[in-house]
């Protein structure tokens, strides 16, 4: 069952109301502002946190696409698998080294 508004309405203690549309608009605008600001201030070899904020903002924008909003789990799942692969790629060597110390 996808994580839809209906489920969240039941799940979260404050029921969704008319402000939902307005909030979506805010998210939409905030995401674009973040993307533009982070890209505009990004420098070569600069801090990676701008890239992360960009990724999160773009992720937010993707979730707004109609085709994605019907497949939220799949979209987030793909992103989660990507993050997991990235994490394990960096984490596993350290763990293996630790486990094999003579």
């Amino acid at each position: 069952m996808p994580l839809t508004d209906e489920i969240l309405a039941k799940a979260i203690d404050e029921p969704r109301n008319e402000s939902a549309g307005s909030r979506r608009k805010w998210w939409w605008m905030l995401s674009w502002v973040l993307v533009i600001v982070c890209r505009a201030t990004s420098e070569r070899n600069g801090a990676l946190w701008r890239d992360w904020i960009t990724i999160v903002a773009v992720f937010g924008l993707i979730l707004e696409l109609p085709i994605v909003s019907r497949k939220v789990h799949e979209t987030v799942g793909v992103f989660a698998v990507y993050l997991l692969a990235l994490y394990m790629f960096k984490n596993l060597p350290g763990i293996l080294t630790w486990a094999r110390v003579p």
Partner: protein
Amino acid sequence: MIFGVACLLLANLSSVAVSLQLSSRLRTGDTPSDVLSVLTIRIVFIALVIIAAGIGGFLSPSGVATLSVVAAVITMGLARTTPSIALIWKRSEWSWAAILVALFILIRAILQVWFLSPYNGDAVSYHLTKIAEWIRAGAFTRQMGVDTHASFPAGYELIETWWVVFLHHDVLIEMAGVELMLLACAGLYLLAKNTGLDSDWSLLAAASFALVPGIATQLVSGLNDMAIAAVGIATFALISSGAHLCLIVLAASLGIAIKPTFMGLLPGIALFWWFRRRQPRERHIPRPELIGFMVVAACLGSFFYVRNAIWFNNPFHPVGMHGHADASGQQVIRFGPSISPMLANISGLSESAIYDGTPFTSLLFNIAGWGPLAVALGAPAVVLLARQSDSFAKLALSFLASLLSVFALVRHDYWYLRFVLFFPAILCIGACWLVKDNIGLKVLFFACMGYQFLVTMLPGDIPPFLFPKFVEQPWRNRSYANIADGWHQEDAVAYCVEERINRGESYVLYKPDFSSRVMYPTSESASAFYREISDQNIYLVYWSVQSLHRPRVLEDCLKEGFVDHVEGRFLYFKRKSP
């Protein structure tokens, strides 16, 4: 030993009775919230009993047990009722699978407590050294070792002292970590329930937080960062459940007593309080009881700061307005907020630390210690949920405010991320929301939990080959000293370190049953040094592994012929004839 065990049981029963009684005045009727209240009050009670016993000079098994029983009798007498124990959950709320997962984690934690003895550098340098001095003296002492950090607030050490004082042995010292882990899990369970997760998934959210590598490895380390995270989560949870203000203040005061870093969480906690200000809080308690709770909170929260103000004229000693510098003059602790370390800390987290590229050491050296579940599943889920729910967005925003606030207060060093171990809590809740209705993501979730369970079987400080060396020792003598060539047969030893403000493993010299006296000589010349230790009838000197070279004064003693022989890091001095 039997007497100690009896005192341990009696004191713990008394603490539970007092907690049940006092929390009954503040019950919400919601079982998870009431259980969290009981756990919070129990830890506060333990801390206060140890403070009273430490000041009064009866920090002994019988002293602490008597004080606990007297406190229980007085509390019951004043209330004129027996404590209600109507806090039992219905078993049917949870599936057997969720219960088994939680039980596995709890049993593993208890086994770790039993088989591991204090090993972490910071813990054996200043966290635990003061406990050893307290236990030996049967009271609080000004002698707390040579580490400059020894005077830091010691709220967590009070809980550790509780688990040490009855047996006069440190075999259960890490039970303080288990106690705080239970508080964190109860808080997380409540937070998860309040976001609308069902009981099963709330329990799994709590279990997944207990498996966050940073939390799991700190559990048995003797460090207090996990304790800060636990109290922070409990405070957020109490606010979310509409608990009485005095309970929230009590929890916050406990956090402040444990470590000043907790103050960094307060902006987020205050923000969350503001978000939930319209929440009904109809429970009324009489004014005298309200004042009583507030006085207790003020006493606990301010105790170590007032002590430092009296002893050192500085409540934050050794940290001054310009922070605190090490022997080389380099700043090691910051004081006050600043934007530049905050940005550096955010960069450090996002660029490398979040991937946990090195083993999960207790100090979280260069890593966040959040684990794959929080990073891969939790982070995208929180973005998703925050977009769709105002309530979740407010909770996430409050956690984020606390995270940024701590980042603004701490220096950008190799281990700053241990100060924000509360943050994965929101990621664990998000992960549970994300996966609970999708079989593919569920598989990923349990795979991550399994991985985290495996990689946190031992803290990264202890490689697997070292673990059998702990296990094969009889529990009475189980000590890191046996592994690090720090074990000795004398009943008194002098501890020497090259730079006096440097740290060192002095705690292990006290032995697990605190039977050895440890002296910290201050003389700089060989003859004065020899006189100083022999006046105390001490003829064994240990020099710390923190000293790159043997301290100069010991070299001088060797040249002067005061030393009989040398064995490893021990110098056996010639005995003076009486």
